[in-house]
């Protein structure tokens, strides 16, 4: 009996290993992004994010060139105690360090027979000694300044707060709360994303509720044919319509306006939204409607008082789906909004392609853009999955 149980548990180990392994592969890249976004820029560029979890106690080049004489803790030669911050402060960069390494000490070359380190290795040693002597080596350092820099669109070499303290900030920064709306920053982009997404989610749902009701419960000629065409429209690629629409927008002056993007997303969200609404409303029992009409209700009353309250589950899943779709969209934002009113996806792709921003800013910006979708997704996952299952295709 007991042996059976042990066997059963053993037989399940491969399953657990595969499942947990897959989970890790899925989580680790995102984890790397999250951790990197909280690390100071010097650390991001000199060591991998995983060293936060398992800090390197001894730096590689230090071991190679210095540890044999100075010892692993740097205290082996009392007159040159590398753990003394005052001594290390005299060699802050690789140049000064190389100078002392080239000098003779007590009549013999500093390095003995060992060849001099390359300048990159010397820089690594200098950085290591700086951290080590100040007691920071081996401890992970975290900062939120990447997020501040990303939010205000800071592009300098230090950090936003430091520049503001020293009064050396760029011309477009004012060092007050209005910097959050700096057009180059993620703060402004967040606002723009919200302004794009909310109407572009509400409009198609509203129109789809009307049309879905008509397709499900109203009688008109060509109902089935029209709906079949709609099903086909669901898979029409967005790319097919970009050129003509941007030409019309140019004539109407809608390029770069919110209205243009709202309407475009509405147009492309509708086929799927109507499909889902019609299927949902069509599954309601017809007795319900017959009873309402027998009581003298008009279509409009039935729609307002009966259909909308009953359709709430479908509206919820549709809402999440459309919200994530619009929020995460890059192509439409790129074509119709571009740099005049940048949304988050645009701002990030711009940081990658033309500005060559550092990883510390990119990771913070990327995480900022994921924040809201993640919250929406994890709190309303059930509705999202349901909406996806119902349609399984989206244009």
């Amino acid at each position, binding site marked *: 009996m007991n042996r059976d149980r042990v066997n059963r548990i053993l037989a399940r180990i491969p399953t657990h290993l595969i*499942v947990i392994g*897959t989970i890790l592969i*899925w989580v680790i*890249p*995102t984890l*790397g*992004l999250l951790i990197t976004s909280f690390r100071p820029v010097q650390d991001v560029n*000199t060591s991998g*994010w995983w060293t936060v979890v398992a800090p390197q106690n001894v730096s*590689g080049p230090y071991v190679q060139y210095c540890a044999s004489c100075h010892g692993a803790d740097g205290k082996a030669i009392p007159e040159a105690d590398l753990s003394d911050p005052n001594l290390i402060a005299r060699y802050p960069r690789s140049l000064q360090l190389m100078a002392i390494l080239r000098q003779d000490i007590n009549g013999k070359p500093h390095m003995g027979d060992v060849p001099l380190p390359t300048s*990159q290795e010397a820089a690594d040693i200098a950085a290591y000694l700086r951290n080590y002597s100040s007691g920071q080596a081996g401890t992970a350092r975290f900062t939120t300044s990447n997020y501040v820099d990303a939010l205000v669109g800071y592009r300098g070499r230090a950090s936003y707060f430091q520049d503001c303290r020293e009064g050396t900030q760029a011309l477009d920064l004012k060092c007050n709360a209005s910097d959050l709306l700096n057009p180059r920053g993620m703060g402004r982009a967040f606002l723009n994303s919200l302004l794009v997404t909310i109407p572009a989610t509400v409009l198609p749902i509203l*129109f*789809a509720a*009307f*049309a879905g009701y008509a*397709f499900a*419960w109203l009688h008109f000629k060509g109902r089935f044919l029209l709906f079949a065409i709609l*099903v*086909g429209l669901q*898979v*029409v*690629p967005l*790319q*097919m*319509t*970009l*050129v003509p629409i941007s030409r019309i927008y140019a004539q109407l002056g809608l390029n770069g306006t919110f209205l243009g993007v709202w309407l475009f997303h*509405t*147009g*492309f969200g509708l086929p799927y939204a109507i499909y889902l609404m*019609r*299927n949902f409303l069509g*599954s309601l029992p*017809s007795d319900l409607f*017959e009873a309402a*009409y027998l009581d003298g209700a*008009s279509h409009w009353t039935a*729609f307002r008082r009966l259909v909308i309250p009953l359709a709430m*589950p479908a509206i919820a899943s549709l809402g999440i789906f459309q919200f994530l779709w619009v929020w*995460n*969209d*890059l192509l439409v934002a790129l074509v119709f909004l571009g740099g005049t009113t940048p949304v988050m996806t645009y701002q*990030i*792709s711009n940081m990658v*392609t033309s500005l060559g921003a550092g*990883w510390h800013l*990119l990771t913070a910006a*990327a*995480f900022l*853009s*994921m924040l809201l*979708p993640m919250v929406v*997704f*994890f709190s309303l*996952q059930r509705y999202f*999955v349901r909406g*996806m*299952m*119902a349609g399984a*295709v989206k244009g």
Partner: protein
Amino acid sequence: MASQDIPKVMKQPRLGRKTDERKTASQNVPKIMRQGNLAPWLYLLPALLVMSFFIVYPMINTVALSFSNKDGTVSAATTCIAGNPCWGVFENYRYALTSEFDFSSPVSFWNTFWKSSFGNNIKWMFLMTAGTVGIGLAFAVLADRVKYEPLAKAVIFMPMAVSFVGAGIIWKFVYDYGTRQVQIGLLNSIITAFGGDPVAWLSTPGLNTLMLIVVGIWIWTGFCMTILSASLKSVPDEILEAARVDGASEWTVFWRIMVPIITPTILVVITTMVINVLKLFDIVYVMTGGNFGTNVIANRMYTEMYKNFNAGRGTAVAVILVLAIIPFIYYNIKRFLAQEAMR
């Protein structure tokens, strides 16, 4: 909300089983509900207006534009250069279809083909569809047997909530190609830790497209897994138990019972994935910009239209994309008609 609140039609249709016994809308509308001829169109009006303006009209216009020159003023035939090959009004299509290839010899054609947007789209289509459906199905089966299934599925599904741009950054960081001393990219640091040389994952032609496909698989596996998992759970337990009692191994149960029963769902997932892959743009745009032989059709269309400002060539590429998708539009409508017939 309890599971019985899920509307019946929103579940995947099961084999040969009527989803709903009650009278529903696909039958005739009850007489009492027929109120006037105008009312239905009033309800449809906003949606039809927006859709015809944003989908139907532009589609027709795009086809027209694809036969004209750069700014859509005269026929594409006028852009031909004497002495060069020319397809008349189909000149933009000649450019779209042939400009990426080197026809001087079969070998050079073969090599340039697999670095062109068309070759890459074919790679994407097969590898990403196989990867997402394969991993999704395997994970759905295995996760079904562990107690932490909801958590496991939520984790795999999570990338669906993240934008392609965000996913692009996440993976660009994983693939980072650092200096000789410091590797801050996870993949290269693992390789160098084992004594290997770091690899420029995103700028080595041939390898880079595969690396981008991995990102696509990472994003879309959750989608396939969720749908396949729901479908697997609808396979009656009695059938599986009966097979196990008869001595079938788990492997046999999977291939001979589960897979045949959920084949319709697998087909739906595959077609959906193929359509998604053909339209794919963001991953390539963010991670490589289509350089180093990673271009895809959708990115090429964007480059022609908004970087080279050649509307004719851009729209020709778009039309080719639609032609590739038409079989799936047809399949989608057919599936819809079959579903309607079942109700």
